[in-house]
């Protein structure tokens, strides 16, 4: 299997505060990885390092087969950040304009959006069933609708790797189900590799096929079936937590 993300001996600290310590794992093509851990366990920091937003203190990272330091094909990665609604509420952008921003990663200077790109944006909006919102102002939408707009932006390039940071926070139960069904479809039908950060370990058991559990270092990384049958993990998590994850699986 092709390695989509490979992390070796990764260390990161904010000043004297150690956030990640000797982190090692590799994610393969088509994996759906649930990235779990307590608040402050380093999940978001790890993802920001993989996305090149933060530089690690030490360690080697390769993304889609390339050393992260030399990686430039950002259109192959889709990213849905935490708290997407925290953009400037007076920003005068339409849904179309926001989603089309996702396309500029594969453009060369001077970057321009073409008629063909408009069709691509329409398809992304259609996939998320929000084509009717195309000309609406992003600030006029509900939290759930905004979430789908930002997911459309992350998906507009048809990425090979999709990274989502706590995506279900702003969603009601029905929208959340549709959202996770869509992720399952992208993973199973398109073979898209997904990294889903969540502190809700029940979600991981329900949707992912692998678990990466972080507490500064990797506590567990592997298939959920391995996790569920691991006595060592039962010792770490306790019977109830392990059961909660595995029951959903």
């Amino acid at each position, binding site marked *: 299997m092709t390695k989509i993300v490979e992390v070796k001996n990764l260390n990161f600290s904010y000043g004297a505060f150690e956030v990640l310590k000797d982190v090692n794992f590799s994610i393969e093509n088509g994996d759906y990885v649930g990235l779990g851990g307590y608040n402050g366990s380093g999940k978001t920091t790890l993802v920001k390092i993989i996305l090149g937003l933060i530089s690690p203190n030490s360690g080697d990272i390769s993304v889609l087969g390339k050393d992260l330091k030399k990686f430039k094909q950002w259109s192959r990665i889709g990213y849905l950040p935490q708290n997407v609604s925290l953009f400037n509420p*007076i920003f005068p952008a339409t849904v179309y304009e926001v989603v089309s921003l996702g396309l500029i990663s594969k453009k060369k200077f001077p970057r321009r959006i073409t008629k063909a790109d408009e069709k691509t944006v329409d398809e992304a909006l259609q996939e998320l069933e929000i084509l009717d919102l195309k000309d609406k102002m992003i600030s006029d939408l509900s939290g759930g609708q905004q979430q789908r707009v930002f997911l459309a932006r992350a998906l507009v390039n048809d990425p090979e790797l999709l990274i989502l940071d706590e995506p279900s926070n702003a969603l009601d139960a029905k929208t959340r189900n549709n959202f996770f069904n869509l992720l399952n479809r992208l993973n199973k039908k398109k073979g898209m590799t997904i990294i889903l950060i969540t502190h809700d370990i029940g979600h991981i058991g329900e949707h992912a096929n692998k678990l990466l559990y972080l507490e500064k270092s990797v506590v567990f990384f592997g298939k959920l079936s391995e996790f569920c049958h691991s006595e060592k993990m039962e010792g770490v998590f306790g019977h109830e937590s392990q059961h909660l994850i595995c029951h959903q699986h």
Partner: protein
Amino acid sequence: MNISFLEFISYSFVQRAFISGIFVGVLCSILGLFLVLRKLSLIGDGLSHVSFGAIAMGLFFGLYPIYFAIPVVILSSIFIVKLTHKAKIYGDTAIGVVSSVGLAGGVLLASISHGFNVSLLSYLFGNILAISTSETYLSIALSLFVLVTVYLLYYELFSVTFNEEQANVTGIKSDKINLLLVILTAITVVLSIRVVGIMLVSSFFILPAVTALQISNGFKSAIFVSALVAIVSVISGICASFYLDLPAGASIVIVNFIIFLFSFLWRKGM
């Protein structure tokens, strides 16, 4: 005044005022939109204070003040960005530090020299109707340079303004775009001083942008509305100043504010 509009616009000083005013107004209004949305509206105010010091320095050394001010204000804008990152202080604080030093420097030089206080005061309020031909050419050249740069880097500026983190994930170097934005702003501030004066420069950046935010229905539409408001304000302001014998810079600002007021009331459905 008792002359027709056609006669009025046939004067070369009026033509120069319209051309410089429209170019600089459009420039300020477009950059202003990016600055307002990035909560950097007061950088125009801060850099205009730095211009005061730079113009005083130019007069002190017997150099043409505007030409001297351009590199000084550009360097100050870069210093603001570096100070924000390196000294770990907020952007508005860095603007406050640099602008107060610029203003204090200008006051000290004016006090030491005793000779150019009148010239310096003329820069405080500007006089668009006294713009020279060479200043008009400079306004056109630098305005075109800034406008072409904004056109070529439109999506980079839009993306970084909307969400810096997401812009970085699409491969845009947001720190470089931020630096470029403040350098373009620095050039524009110096250009605006002859039109509107140091005291009122920031209004040229802020008012058309906030008017556009009231009535636009998209980002491109906001840029278009902001530029249109600036053009209408400049033309109306210059006409009002000529016919009513009022200061031009202040007239343009008041027209800008009236348009903002109407747009605000229109949005509220009144």
